[in-house]
């Protein structure tokens, strides 16, 4: 009913408003029916300013430029997977859906090929990072269009670390544990979630596992070899590390609890995206330290420490898919193309203040990265991260299943809750075998 009215209005008005503006803005006639509504589903951004920017400026501009109506919806990040599943099952739903990490692989049969869009963006911006391709390529084609990377770094309180004698951030797990012990003794533990979260938990547990020499699968893609000494050692270390240095409520945390804990100054360090620092910047007078300084002056970022097998990282990756059922595929593609043009993507990127690292090399040179030294580590997030399924070259369906079942995170969570390291690893081995063999 309302759609018909809208369509009528658009049909009559479009020739004047939409069509003309569209032609003028893009320099070519719009290629699809007037009156198309594109439903775009994203998560509630951890940097609210960006969602505001989209709603108030970017999307209205897109509507004018492309002659379409945009229905922009944001939901809690954890609800994206249920939404796409029920949408695919019921055959109707959003036209563009944002997904995390390698989730697109789970839905590869139900989404359209994005290779043409992907290659045009890649060409214009010096190419995608490897981890982007790993997450979004199924065989030969792009099943999702990379959007951005949210770098995960440890945000920590410089002054507190100084006080316990660690002026530079500890670079190995042993050193981090020692420092953490002292901090917790002062009532300022490290905070880390080992719960079922899409962001903070996997971006910790996976690189932690890799840094000790473990992995969910071997290079051949078939052998599960997680039940070995290095992994058991990592689990034992984690259990002790947890009790000695962590806020033990972390088992129940979601991706926002550590933000709140850090900002209310009950923890001294946590692995997170840059949203903690950005929030402290946004409201500098709301967050005052015990020494009466603004909290933002006491926050620094560091990558995860090294383990016996090296230093690893995993960052949360975002991409967009267009499902097969969508009746507005052309419009959706136009919208994605529009938003990825430099002129339109840049304001969004700037509003993120470094929380998001764009998926292509070209943006490394952007001046935003020079503005704030505290954000410097995030610039190279794209270069350094691996993807679930490492050391497999591509993060496909099976690593996606492992990720959504939280097997790696749970292995550590179970041990921390009291299971012996051997049993926890054995459990993980069983679960992994069920998926990979």
């Amino acid at each position, binding site marked *: 009913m309302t759609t018909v009215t809208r369509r009528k209005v658009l049909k009559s008005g479009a020739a004047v408003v939409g069509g003309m503006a569209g032609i003028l803005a893009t320099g070519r006639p719009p290629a699809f029916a007037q009156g198309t509504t594109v439903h775009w589903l994203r998560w509630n951004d951890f940097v609210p300013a960006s969602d505001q920017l989209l709603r108030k400026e970017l999307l209205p501009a897109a509507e004018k430029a492309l002659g379409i109506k945009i229905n922009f919806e944001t939901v*809690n990040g954890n609800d994206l997977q249920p939404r796409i599943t*029920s949408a695919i099952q019921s055959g109707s739903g959003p036209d563009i859906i944002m997904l995390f990490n390698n989730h697109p692989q789970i839905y590869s049969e139900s989404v359209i090929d994005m290779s043409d869009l992907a290659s045009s963006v890649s060409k214009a911006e010096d190419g995608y990072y490897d981890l982007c391709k790993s997450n979004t390529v199924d065989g030969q084609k792009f099943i999702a269009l990379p959007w951005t990377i949210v770098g995960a770094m440890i945000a920590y309180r410089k002054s507190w670390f100084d006080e316990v004698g660690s002026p530079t951030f500890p670079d190995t797990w042993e050193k981090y544990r020692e420092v953490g012990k002292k901090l917790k003794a002062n009532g300022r533990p490290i905070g880390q979630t080992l719960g079922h979260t899409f962001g903070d938990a996997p971006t910790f547990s996976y690189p932690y596992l890799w840094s000790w020499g473990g992995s969910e699968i071997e290079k051949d893609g078939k052998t599960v070899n997680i039940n070995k000494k290095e992994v058991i050692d990592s689990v034992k270390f984690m259990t002790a590390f947890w009790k000695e240095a962590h806020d033990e409520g972390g088992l129940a945390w979601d991706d926002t609890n550590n933000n709140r804990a850090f900002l209310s100054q009950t923890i001294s360090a946590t692995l997170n995206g840059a949203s903690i620092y950005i929030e402290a910047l946004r409201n500098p007078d709301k967050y005052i330290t015990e020494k009466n300084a603004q909290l933002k002056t006491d926050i620094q970022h560091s990558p995860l420490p090294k383990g016996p097998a090296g230093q690893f990282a995993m960052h949360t990756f975002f991409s967009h898919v267009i499902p097969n059922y969508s009746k507005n595929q052309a419009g959706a593609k136009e919208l994605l193309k529009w938003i990825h043009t430099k002129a339109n993507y840049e304001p969004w990127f700037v509003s993120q203040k470094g929380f998001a690292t764009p998926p292509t090399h070209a943006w490394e040179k952007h001046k935003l990265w020079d503005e704030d030294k505290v954000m410097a580590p995030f610039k190279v997030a794209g270069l350094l991260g691996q993807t679930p399924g490492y050391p497999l070259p591509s993060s496909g369906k099976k690593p996606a299943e492992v990720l959504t079942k939280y097997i790696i995170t749970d292995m550590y969570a179970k041990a921390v809750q009291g299971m012996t390291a051997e049993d926890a690893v054995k459990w993980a081995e069983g679960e992994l075998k069920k998926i990979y063999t």
Partner: protein
Amino acid sequence: MIEGARWRKWVFFYVPMALFLVFLLFPFYWMVITSVRPDGELYRPWNAINYNPFWTWKPTWVHVRYLFEETLFASWLWNTTFIALVSTAISLVCGVFAGYALSRLTFPFAGSLGTAIFITYLVPQTLLFIPLAEIIRNYRLGDTPWSLILTYPTFLIPFCTWLMMGYFKAVPKELEECARIDGASRWQAMLYIVIPVAIPGILSAGIFAFTLSWNEFIYALVFLSSPEQKTVPVGVTSELIRGDVFFWGPLMAGALLGSIPVAIAYSFFVEHYVAGLTGSVKG
């Protein structure tokens, strides 16, 4: 009964009663306080010195304003009420008719049908929602209130039927027989004699159905997607749990305000609600 000294009255009545009331009603007080508490106070850790849980000196409407301005809360309220009212109406009609048939008419398979209807109450929603999603798609009802209006009766009808059966059983057969002797048809006897007598039961069933509709979550979560179409439980859960830091205020405000329509309906019919519960268990 508690005889004897006054202290016994206190120990055995007033104190337990007070404890029950505190236990049952404290969360509501908590919702109210959190809704009007400014953010600065909201996020003090529990062992901070100035943590003051039970009162705030600086109440603010900012959360409520946020709820109505920045989210589609008003739409959700409307949607949920509309869906609940229509589902209730449908379920009452079906439940009254079915309850009458099963309790006052004899016909083959009466017993089995009654049992079958009861069995459907056992089928878990988590099993049904995936196949239902397909059916909803085939009828193109996805993302409309009708997807819920047609599926809610599936758990409301068995309950209404069962409730009405209890009430109908208590209506003496003589009433109907008198009417029929006087020339009324079965249909008329049902409509004009038996049903009016069971109006309290119908009201109770209606209120129960209304509150159960408001309470439903899974189907609404799966079948609705556009923000304007959502119901209050789904909207509050999906749009007020944001990744950012400060949303407990609007969340509690939403929880409180989202409960008000049901509470209002309930307050008008509390007698019938209670009578309904009691009638159902007697029947």
